[in-house]
């Protein structure tokens, strides 16, 4: 069989860069295959997709050598338009990709551009809408849709062209875990029913492996470092070496000293053969020491019986109540649109609750303005671009103090101190634009930290970040939490984050407080996980299948074990990326 995509000794260098982003790529993908491409940010995995859909070299100019054939054609000759008939791309930003004013128009967009007559368009749109299950939404505007629905519309928008290849660029990045699961399931259905060749680019390996894939291609520093069947890849160490997170159950098995074999089929925990490892796992569970230290600090923030609605009679939040103790690290989780961001907004004073109160150190802050609250409760937005407004790092960090009329000398001292805490001191006179994404994120955290807040709320601190950046950001937050006693609340739908870094999870579902418990308990409770659109952790299944009596305890011990081995982990990470002293 001839491959539908074939890279031969392919090297590509962006015009703006010194070094090639892809080097000597040799990769063949056959019709009907479903391939997962993983790799850390900047490894070149997205560039591979751009080469296939023609964005390279047409939108992103550069030089290439070697050959690339997609269905016998050279994308660099055929152009973006020509390639769009063969390969459809679903971008990571599904809101940005939504071009039409309604679902139907967005799906029809490619057909309109191809001058397909109206009657035929209406037929084809309705057919493809059926496939991705958005038929009832055809007349809806984008702001009436959830993230998952938008993604399905994006899929329909490229499938309407009867493409033979579908490229998914980080399809899971903006979805809550349950919606992500559904997306992977839908992709799998399309692959099986339509025999479409599918390439998924993703660094969230465990979630992407929810359904079978034929092969996993690991990209590292512009080269293909592995191209293997999932079962085989998971038993080896390539993933860890490349800074990609293995599925948690695989990590747990490896921690316990199990020699994983391909024959045990580790691709899915549900179907994995665990008999050979049962005993080892049980023994490991017993030996991993775990003692829970309870800090009894005073309560800094308490939310009491909070109600909120935009329109009367249509409550967004109902009867929300919880206490946050000083120095805690707490995650606020729940599906997209459950009311998490609204809750943060109310705490910061952007919106007024209909009923209920918020106490800061026992004092009611209902009457305080946004600015007054901002001195004690800092908010860090999801993307640094949404906050940074000054060209220089120093000015940006100093902004909050400058507008409060703090004397120049004091500003300087406090900014320098904060920059040192954040590891940005050497860059104090740099322009913000010279920084990497992770560093910019630090600048935004520094600009909040400089005001000495008691609480920092972070909205999706790690969204769209690969494992290395994720670790860097989270370790930094952990450090300011532990060393400086700053209370941290994080809105997230990253379950790893909540398990590994927070002591408590506040679960919001459809405007109600569904649970307020340890992440390990939340993620091992099927009812809670289902209702909040979370996903039960695979560690739970592992524990149950290995006959470990208390799965929650198992998860807690695993996390503890991991955090003890953290030092090692981050140490390795830093060494590996030696020249790139990013954060």
């Amino acid at each position: 069989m001839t491959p539908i995509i074939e890279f031969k000794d392919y090297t590509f260098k962006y015009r703006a860069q010194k070094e090639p982003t892809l080097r000597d790529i040799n990769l063949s993908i056959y019709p009907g295959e479903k391939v997962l491409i993983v790799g850390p940010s900047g490894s070149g995995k997205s560039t591979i997709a751009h080469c296939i859909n023609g964005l390279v070299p047409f939108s992103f100019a550069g030089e290439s050598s070697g050959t690339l054939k997609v269905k016998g054609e050279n994308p660099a000759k055929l152009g973006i338009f020509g390639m769009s008939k063969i390969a459809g791309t679903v971008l990571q930003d599904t809101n940005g990709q939504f071009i039409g004013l309604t679902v139907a128009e967005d799906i029809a967009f490619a057909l309109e551009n191809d001058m397909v007559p109206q009657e035929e368009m209406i037929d084809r749109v309705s057919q493809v809408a059926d496939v991705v299950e958005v038929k009832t939404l055809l007349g809806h505007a984008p702001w009436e849709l959830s993230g998952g629905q938008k993604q399905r519309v994006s899929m329909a928008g490229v499938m309407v062209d009867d493409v033979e290849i579908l490229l998914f660029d980080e399809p899971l990045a903006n979805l809550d875990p349950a919606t992500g699961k559904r997306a992977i399931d839908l992709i799998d259905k399309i692959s099986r029913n339509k025999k479409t060749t599918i390439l998924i680019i993703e660094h969230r390996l465990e979630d992407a492996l929810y359904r079978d894939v034929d092969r996993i291609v690991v990209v590292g520093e512009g080269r293909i470092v592995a191209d293997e069947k999932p079962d085989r890849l998971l038993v080896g160490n390539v993933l860890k070496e490349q800074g990609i997170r293995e599925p948690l159950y695989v990590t747990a098995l490896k921690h316990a000293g199990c020699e994983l074999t391909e024959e045990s089929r580790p691709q899915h925990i549900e179907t994995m053969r665990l008999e050979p490892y049962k005993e080892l796992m049980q023994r490991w569970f017993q030996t991993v020491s775990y003692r829970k230290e309870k800090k009894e600090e005073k309560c800094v923030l308490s939310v009491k019986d909070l109600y909120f609605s935009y329109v009367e009679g249509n409550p967004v939040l109902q009867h929300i109540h919880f206490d946050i103790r000083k120095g805690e690290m707490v995650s606020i989780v729940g599906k997209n649109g459950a009311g998490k961001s609204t809750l943060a907004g109310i705490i910061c004073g952007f919106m007024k609750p209909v009923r209920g109160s918020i106490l800061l150190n026992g004092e009611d802050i209902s009457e305080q303005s946004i600015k007054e609250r901002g001195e004690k409760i800092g908010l860090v937005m999801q993307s640094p671009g949404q906050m940074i407004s000054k060209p220089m790092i120093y000015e940006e960090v100093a902004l909050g103090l400058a507008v409060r009329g703090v004397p120049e000398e004091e500003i300087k001292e406090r900014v320098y101190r904060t920059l040192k805490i954040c590891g940005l001191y050497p860059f104090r006179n740099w322009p913000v634009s010279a920084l990497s994404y992770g560093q910019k994120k630090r600048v935004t955290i520094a600009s909040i930290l400089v005001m000495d807040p008691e609480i920092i709320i972070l909205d999706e601190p790690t969204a769209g970040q690969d494992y290395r950046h994720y670790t860097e950001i989270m370790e930094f937050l952990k450090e300011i939490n532990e060393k400086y006693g700053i209370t941290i609340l994080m809105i997230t739908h990253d379950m790893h984050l909540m398990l590994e870094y927070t002591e408590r999870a506040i679960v919001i579902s459809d405007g109600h407080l569904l649970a307020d418990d340890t992440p390990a308990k939340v993620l091992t409770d099927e009812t809670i996980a289902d209702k909040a659109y979370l996903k039960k952790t695979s560690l739970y299944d592992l524990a149950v299948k290995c006959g470990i009596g208390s799965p929650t305890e198992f998860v807690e011990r695993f996390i503890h074990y991991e955090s003890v081995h953290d030092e090692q982990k981050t140490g390795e990470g830093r060494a590996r990326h030696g020249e790139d002293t990013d954060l």
Partner: protein
Amino acid sequence: MARILTYEEKDTWIHRLSGVTKLVFFLLWTMTSMLSYDTRVLLAMMLGSLVIYKMSKTEWKQVGTVLKFILFFLVINLIAIFLFSPYEGVGIYGTRSDLFHLFGNYWVTKEQLFYELNVMMKYVTIVPAVFMFVVTTNPSEFAASLNRIGISYNIGYSVAIALRYIPDVQDDFSKIRNAQEARGIEMSGKASFSSRIKNTAAIIFPLIFTSMDRIDVVSNAMELRGFGKHKKRTWYMGKKLKRADYVTLAVTVLLSALFLFITFHDGDRFYNPFV
């Protein structure tokens, strides 16, 4: 969210008309009423506009705020005309019938009042036509209509894209403003005017940068799906012209021609009751 001047789906014959028809009607009707100062024509057109507005079942809440705003400007405009050119009417109609003396050089004349009445009638003719067009034309169809009357689809589509992303940009704006306010950048009335102007930069720059990122994504997404491939494109939401459209178009063209004829047949676009 306040939904001012937005399309609302209703079942009236006006809603059922194609966007092209409504666009042509709107353009011809507005043009004619702007050209004509013939009071009889303006009166007929004004009544026509009001009837059409009524038939479109437009509700007060859809247009109320904007209407108040326009009325305010209308009043300002009428006063300004009088202040800057109190004898405009006298000049036009060639007679002077004083009503009463105001102050200084300002006399209120019948001619001036009549002239300003004509100006007001133009407003009352055009405004309902604008409202009717905006609230009965599906924005998706609007781009198709522009394209149909010969405007390049690139322009038509940029209008549609703007409509699509305005809510997103508004959303970004309020998020950024909130976050900056929490950092202490006061945007409310508490801050002085000059510092508010300065503080705007703290919101505008992040807004521009996030919008530019968005533009990047959108233009790639559009290109990946073949936008701009051909000289023409078809429209999913385009409405075919039906009999009602042809009838409406014909009536519009005939009426406009008739009105313009009445206005200009004596070589003067003013109707003069004073001679």
